[in-house]
């Protein structure tokens, strides 16, 4: 679809709906993990973030009635797809947000496209969401595996850690994480000295850590996620891997994982995120409001992404004067994004949201002033470099 046609379409819709503007009712479905491994980084917090976005936007005063519903997809694509289908078919949902776990995100993306609705993903990692499997109805908001690989891989090689060894979860997601990071490492002049694939999910990683140790690598890249990453880091501490001089690089790890591990075990770990509550005054103020509603827990970047995405969606609903998906998405892609959490940014034609990323190092227990004071910022990766160039993604929409 060309841009002009989209403009025409949105224009036509404005005329068609015109006066109905004052009565737009929008239904947002927050679909994420509410019982599994990603509960802490998404879960109820994302619902709170979505609600805060509606409040801050002042939807009620602008004549937009917003209703938020939520459900648990248990990180399974089959459950995610059946909930999404039901939401669109029966419950009149217009927008689905969050959806951690890439497999579930793909399922929701497919259905959203079929039903011609809007999907703003904050929780899932796979860069394919805006690459080979991109969709005109999907916007990928917060981060992706390519950006994490770029941040962590690029920065560590630049700091002189050239020899890498990967401990990879043996399934599609782990493989792609390893592949992306290895490409970044090699491009930056580093070298991959070996890798080992462990069954997923695993419990005992000592054997792989031992292999990593004897490989002579400077960095052990953890191309796994969730409980596997947490266990690998724990066992690395037990076997004295980091004390012996090797660094661990988490390729998909969140602040809630660090919280669960404790600083004693996690210290020194290098990782990339797009948001940290303690970045600046605005993020601190927002996070304080969030924590007050979320039992004192600070927000993750996924929560921040849900807030930012919903806010931008509502702005586009206001701008187009209706909730027609094609018009709203066209507006979301043409209007620059701006919010207190990610600053200024934009949404690319392939659905990729662009903003700065940050490289963090986990503090030593002595350097931390209290709970949730975990990160020390090592570098900012500017928006222009942080994400995969649009031409490299192979998104079939760009023709």
């Amino acid at each position, binding site marked *: 679809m060309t841009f002009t046609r989209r403009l025409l379409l949105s224009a036509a819709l404005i005329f068609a709906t015109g006066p109905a503007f004052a009565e737009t009712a929008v239904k947002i479905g927050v679909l994420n993990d509410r*019982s*599994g*491994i990603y*509960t*802490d980084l998404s879960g109820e917090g994302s619902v709170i973030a979505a609600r805060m976005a509606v409040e801050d936007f002042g939807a009620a005063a602008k004549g937009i009635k917003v209703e938020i519903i939520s459900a648990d997809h248990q990180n399974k694509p089959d459950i995610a797809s059946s909930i999404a289908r039901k939401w669109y078919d029966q419950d009149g949902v217009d927008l689905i947000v969050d959806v951690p776990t890439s497999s579930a995100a793909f399922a929701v993306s497919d259905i959203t496209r079929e039903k011609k609705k809007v999907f703003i993903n904050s929780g899932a990692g796979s860069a394919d969401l805006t690459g080979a499997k991109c969709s005109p109805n999907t916007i990928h908001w917060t981060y992706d595996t390519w950006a994490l690989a770029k941040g962590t891989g690029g920065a560590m090689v630049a700091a002189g850690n050239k020899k890498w060894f990967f401990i990879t979860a*043996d399934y599609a997601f782990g493989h792609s994480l390893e592949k992306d990071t290895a490409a970044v490492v090699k491009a930056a002049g580093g070298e991959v000295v*070996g890798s*080992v*694939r*462990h*069954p997923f*999910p695993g*419990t*005992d990683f*000592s*054997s*792989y850590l*031992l*292999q990593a140790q*004897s*490989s*002579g690598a400077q960095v052990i890249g953890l191309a796994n996620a*969730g*409980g596997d990453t*947490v*266990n690998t880091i*724990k*066992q690395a501490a*037990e*076997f*004295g891997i980091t004390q*012996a001089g090797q660094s661990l690089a988490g390729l998909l790890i969140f602040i*809630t*994982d660090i919280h*669960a*591990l*404790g600083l*004693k*075990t996690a210290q020194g770990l290098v990782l990339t995120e797009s948001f940290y509550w303690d970045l600046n005054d605005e993020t601190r103020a927002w996070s304080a409001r969030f924590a007050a509603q979320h039992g004192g827990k600070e927000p993750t970047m996924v929560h921040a992404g849900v807030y930012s995405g919903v806010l931008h969606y509502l702005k586009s609903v206001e701008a187009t004067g209706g909730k027609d998906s094609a018009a709203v998405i066209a507006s979301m892609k043409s209007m620059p994004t701006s919010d207190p959490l990610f600053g200024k940014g934009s949404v690319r034609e392939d659905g990729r949201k662009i903003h700065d990323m940050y490289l963090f190092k986990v503090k030593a227990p002595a350097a931390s002033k209290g709970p949730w004071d975990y990160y020390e910022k090592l570098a900012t990766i500017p928006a222009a470099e942080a994400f995969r160039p649009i031409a490299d993604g192979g998104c079939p929409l760009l023709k």
Partner: protein
Amino acid sequence: MFELLGIPPQALFGQLLLGLINGSFYALLSLGLAVIFGLLNIINFAHGAQYMMGAFLAWMLMTYFGIGYWWALLLVPIAVGASGVVIERLMISRLYHLDHLYGLLLTFGLALIIQGLFRNQYGVSGLPYTIPAELSGGTNLGFMFLPNYRGWVVLASLVVCLGTWFTIEKTKLGAYLRAATENPTLVGAFGINVPRMITLTYGFGVGLAALAGVLAAPIYSVNPNMGADLIIVVFAVVVIGGMGSILGAIVTGFGLGIIEGLTRVFYPEGSAVVIFVIMALVLLVKPAGLFGRTV
């Protein structure tokens, strides 16, 4: 650091030792299953959940009451074992006159409930449990750095396994137990309270699972799903070993741990299935299991 040319002997020793550590958990768990099966003729599907409860209880004692590892090692198996006694009295004992499959189904249901409750309460991200100060650090064995705690796990598991074997095979109490397995009516006629013995045996088997849980807590993250997948592997171990002898359960447990450890070096992709492949082979060659009595 030395170069890796194939697999140097040092690395091999290291991996063998790691396999032995995993094997200790297999041995403890399959021993508990074997003891319960021996007397109750029930496959305790809740074994994995009870192992998980052991780890969680250790964590709770530490977090809520400040009770440390060593006390947990003693208290947790007793507490979880007691919960097992209650379950046996209230539920399992009602099923003895029925087909054994019902016992399997019941304990499967119990496993779902226990895991679900812990998942609701604590999530699945895993909770940290630190290694006790006395056992932190490690020893350099020359070929590898062995964390002291892992050494302790192997030792503790060996002692418990052999102790159980000795009690059942060599003591008077064990003789009663074995006799009750063969012919409960006759043993009852000699004035031994067989139902109570059955109850306590279930409690003991469950206690063994809980003990394994406490031992696992500092190594693996304490997580509601930690027992769910493990128990299926242990089932395979049990099928391979056959339920015939206590010693068989112990030897198979340790042996398969080592085999799995070696697979991790030579063909890591296959390490998840190697035990199941061995199970298929054993079924072809010796359907009753390596140590099982023939059909």
